């Protein structure tokens, strides 16, 4: 089946059917072809390519189609996954065409982007997919040449018989190899023999992105499609009444509908819908009691931190005795605000509820969740829902939720038409599902020898779940330890936000560790190494991180940054283990005309094998820029159940001028790859706050830094 759907008068989206009946967004220049090859569209290619398994097909003309099952939001999975398949296949990368697979629970598992989990989950299955097809091609070649399979090798898209000098291109073997029984056990390459993995491979969507081709959810236009936007109630309120007369009078508006406590405006163009939405006159009423504000949250934090209702997450030894016997006690509190995820592409989704099923197209990190929600709302069986994933204009955890998909399905059902529902930036900032606001109280006990003998952490979060990572460092290195958490059920909706919990916990913990090191009169790096020594030689309780891997990044970061060896600059250290990876960072701050200037940050990452160095460098840099921007500049406050910072004029995101130099290094240890979309973010805030402390004597315990009393006399964030 091949269909071509009109997107509008001038532009067409080519839609092609895959073998399974799934649909693909196709662009004839996607992929990595050399300019010598004939340019062939995705749909033409798919009609010729012969499937070997769920991940790859080979066409007689030599093209290798590799399907990437997971949503792509900038983590570069659409390039790095196919690299792994191509590596074991020994494919010629210039002939590889990458296509985004649809949601297909039978072909793929874990089609999710979240938790930096795709790479560790898929590493082996992708290698096997490539290796299995390679073996089949070799068997076909052995038959055709009438030689033993052991006399054959492969390289760059060809099977080679060394003795005779004969070479058979994969394309020539595509048909006959596909009929060979799929081998059960195939040998994988020795990592030392990798030719594609470990080399910088450019993003497969570069050309489409840089020439403005439709790639993202917002770029979906279909015949007869209506545009929709929703007005949602403030947190803690429900709909009382709607006067939609003026809104309906706006030219181009076709419907105003309500569902749950939402009012949706539907019309013929985005701008008309935006205008009409502003003309809605809606009354809301409180669901019960007080509407939440930042003051309310602050009051709750203190009330709960001082109360006794905490849940014990981990307890080693006896902290009471340790603190009673302490020579010194250090106590500090750290706090962060709610944050919006703010991907550059606002939430949006296309839904078409029909009698025979639901068609969904758009940017989601969890297509399976979108499918389940749509089936329920539309009242159809889940197998009648198709989900096509577009490229995501960022996610940061926001698109793990399916709320915007649900809205699109509701509206499509109510107006009986295909609908693209979009959120404005203001909707995005006020619509919830934020990084939760959290407050921590840390206490440390030092004995007369300045050994850390007691450690307490108590966290309170607003809909944060467990605010701690109780088994993370420094657990295992302290004799007496108590980790407690309290979750307050706030009206403000929250959601995983890149490096959930650790995006702030790491800052708080690594800043506090520096406070303790200073109280103990020890160098920050030395102090951390001593704790790791203890965790290694005589661990307390269970240890859930690899002490040796953490030690290596600490030592390497100290070495690469010239720790303790630089004049005229203050250095701040931080190290964190999250999402199976280890990252140590050193921030460098120089006082310039009386102000602390963040000059540079060094990062050393252990994520195991680096699949794509250019992508890996991007993930580390991106995570760090994310971490520093939000630590330094971004605030979100609440009044009457509404976020006060509604757009980028007041919700401050980091810009080019504020970004320091970054130097990235990776540990080369040959271990299977672990996550990289998140782990570089958590340590950054702590490295910066520690460097600012050593430069100015001001200890930053709350974010964003720029709004703190401690920095009032300074100007932060401008380069010299």
């Amino acid at each position: 089946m091949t269909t071509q759907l009109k997107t509008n008068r001038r532009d067409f989206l080519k839609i092609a059917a895959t073998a399974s009946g799934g649909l693909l967004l196709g662009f004839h220049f996607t992929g990595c072809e050399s300019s010598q090859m004939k340019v062939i569209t995705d749909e033409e290619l798919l009609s010729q390519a012969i499937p070997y398994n769920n991940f790859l097909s080979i066409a007689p003309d030599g093209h290798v189609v590799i399907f990437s099952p997971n949503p792509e939001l900038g983590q570069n999975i659409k390039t790095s996954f196919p690299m792994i398949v191509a590596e074991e296949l020994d494919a010629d990368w210039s002939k590889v065409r990458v296509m985004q697979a649809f949601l297909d629970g039978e072909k793929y598992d874990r089609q999710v982007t979240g938790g930096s989990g795709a790479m560790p989950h898929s590493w082996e299955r992708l290698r096997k997919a490539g290796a299995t097809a390679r073996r089949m091609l070799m068997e076909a070649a052995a038959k055709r040449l009438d030689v033993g399979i052991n006399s054959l090798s492969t390289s760059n898209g060809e099977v080679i018989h060394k003795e005779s000098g004969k070479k058979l291109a994969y394309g020539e073997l595509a048909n006959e190899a596909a009929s060979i029984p799929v081998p059960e056990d195939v040998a994988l390459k020795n990592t030392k023999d990798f030719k594609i993995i470990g080399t910088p491979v450019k993003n497969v969507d570069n050309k489409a992105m840089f020439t403005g081709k439709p790639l993202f959810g917002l770029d979906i236009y279909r015949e007869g499609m209506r545009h929709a936007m929703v007005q949602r109630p403030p947190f803690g309120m429900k709909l009382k009444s709607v006067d939609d007369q003026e809104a309906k009078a706006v030219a181009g508006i076709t419907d105003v509908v309500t569902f749950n406590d939402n009012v949706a405006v539907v019309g013929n163009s985005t701008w008309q819908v935006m205008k009409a939405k502003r003309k809605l006159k809606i009354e809301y009423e409180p669901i019960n009691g007080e509407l939440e504000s930042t003051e309310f949250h602050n009051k709750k934090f203190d009330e709960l931190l001082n109360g006794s209702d905490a849940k014990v997450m981990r307890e080693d030894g006896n902290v009471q005795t340790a603190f009673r016997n302490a020579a010194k006690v250090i106590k500090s509190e750290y706090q962060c605000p709610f944050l919006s995820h703010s991907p550059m592409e606002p939430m949006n989704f296309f839904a078409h509820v029909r009698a025979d099923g639901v068609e969904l197209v758009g940017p989601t990190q969890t297509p399976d969740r979108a499918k389940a929600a749509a089936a329920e709302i539309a009242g159809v069986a889940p197998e009648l829902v198709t989900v096509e994933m577009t490229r995501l204009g960022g996610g940061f955890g926001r698109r793990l939720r399916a709320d915007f998909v649900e809205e699109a399905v509701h509206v499509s059902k109510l107006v009986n038409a295909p609908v693209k529902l979009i959120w404005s930036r203001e909707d995005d900032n006020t619509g919830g599902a934020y990084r939760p606001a959290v407050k921590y109280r840390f206490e440390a006990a030092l004995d007369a020898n300045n050994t850390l003998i007691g450690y307490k952490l108590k966290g309170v979060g607003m809909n944060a779940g467990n605010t701690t990572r109780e088994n993370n460092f420094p657990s295992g290195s302290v004799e007496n330890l108590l980790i407690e958490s309290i979750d307050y059920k706030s009206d403000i909706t929250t959601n995983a936000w890149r490096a959930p919990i650790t995006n702030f916990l790491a800052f708080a913990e690594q800043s506090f560790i520096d406070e303790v090191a200073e109280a103990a009169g020890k160098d920050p790096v030395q102090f951390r190494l001593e704790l790791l020594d203890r965790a290694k030689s005589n661990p307390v309780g269970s240890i859930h991180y690899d002490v040796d891997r953490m030690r290596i990044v600490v030592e390497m970061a100290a070495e690469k940054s010239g720790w303790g060896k630089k004049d005229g600059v203050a250095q701040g250290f931080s190290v964190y283990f999250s999402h199976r990876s280890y990252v140590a960072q050193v921030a460098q701050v120089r006082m310039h005309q009386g102000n602390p200037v963040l000059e540079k940050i060094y990062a050393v990452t252990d994520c195991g094998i680096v699949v794509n160095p250019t992508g890996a460098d991007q993930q580390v840099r991106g995570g760090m820029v994310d971490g520093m921007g939000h630590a330094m500049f971004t605030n979100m406050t609440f009044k009457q159940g509404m976020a006060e910072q509604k757009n980028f004029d007041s919700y401050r995101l980091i810009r080019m001028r504020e970004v320091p130099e970054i130097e990235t290094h990776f540990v080369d240890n040959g271990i299977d790859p672990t996550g990289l979309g998140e782990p570089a973010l958590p340590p950054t805030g702590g490295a910066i706050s520690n460097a600012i402390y050593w430069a100015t004597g001001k200890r930053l315990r709350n974010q964003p830094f720029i709004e703190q009393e401690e920095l009032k006399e300074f100007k932060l964030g401008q380069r010299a």
Partner: protein
Amino acid sequence: MAKYNLKINGKSHQVDVDDDTPLLWVLRDHLGLVGTKYSCGIAQCGTCMVHVNDEAVKSCVFPVSAIGEDKITTIEGLSADGDHPVQKAWEEIDVAQCGYCQAGQIMTAAALLKKSPNPSEEDVVEAMNGNICRCGTYHRIKEAVMLASKTK
């Protein structure tokens, strides 16, 4: 609603839209030129950048009624085959992460280089500071603009 004759990417287009419709939505909803992106709608992020007579302009607040005879260039019209020096530099440096803001970044950079072919690093920061990249590709954007200035 009124009819407008617009000169976009060297071609003439007629649209029938509300007077206050921003150019951004004329491009996207009415002309199928979806390379120009929406993000903030209040001229704060540069994602919607186009050229109006070779100047970088944020199309999300530029009403169709103000265009007149001005020549509009969008990312689709920047070059015939994605081979503008800025586009080539973006590919060479492998700038994008999610990629959503990059068309706007490229348009800003191309306008800068048109006006000032040999910018200093400070000129680049000054020109590009109005464009937000939430993924944090700022280092590579800067590197790519500098490269484009040397390779055209």
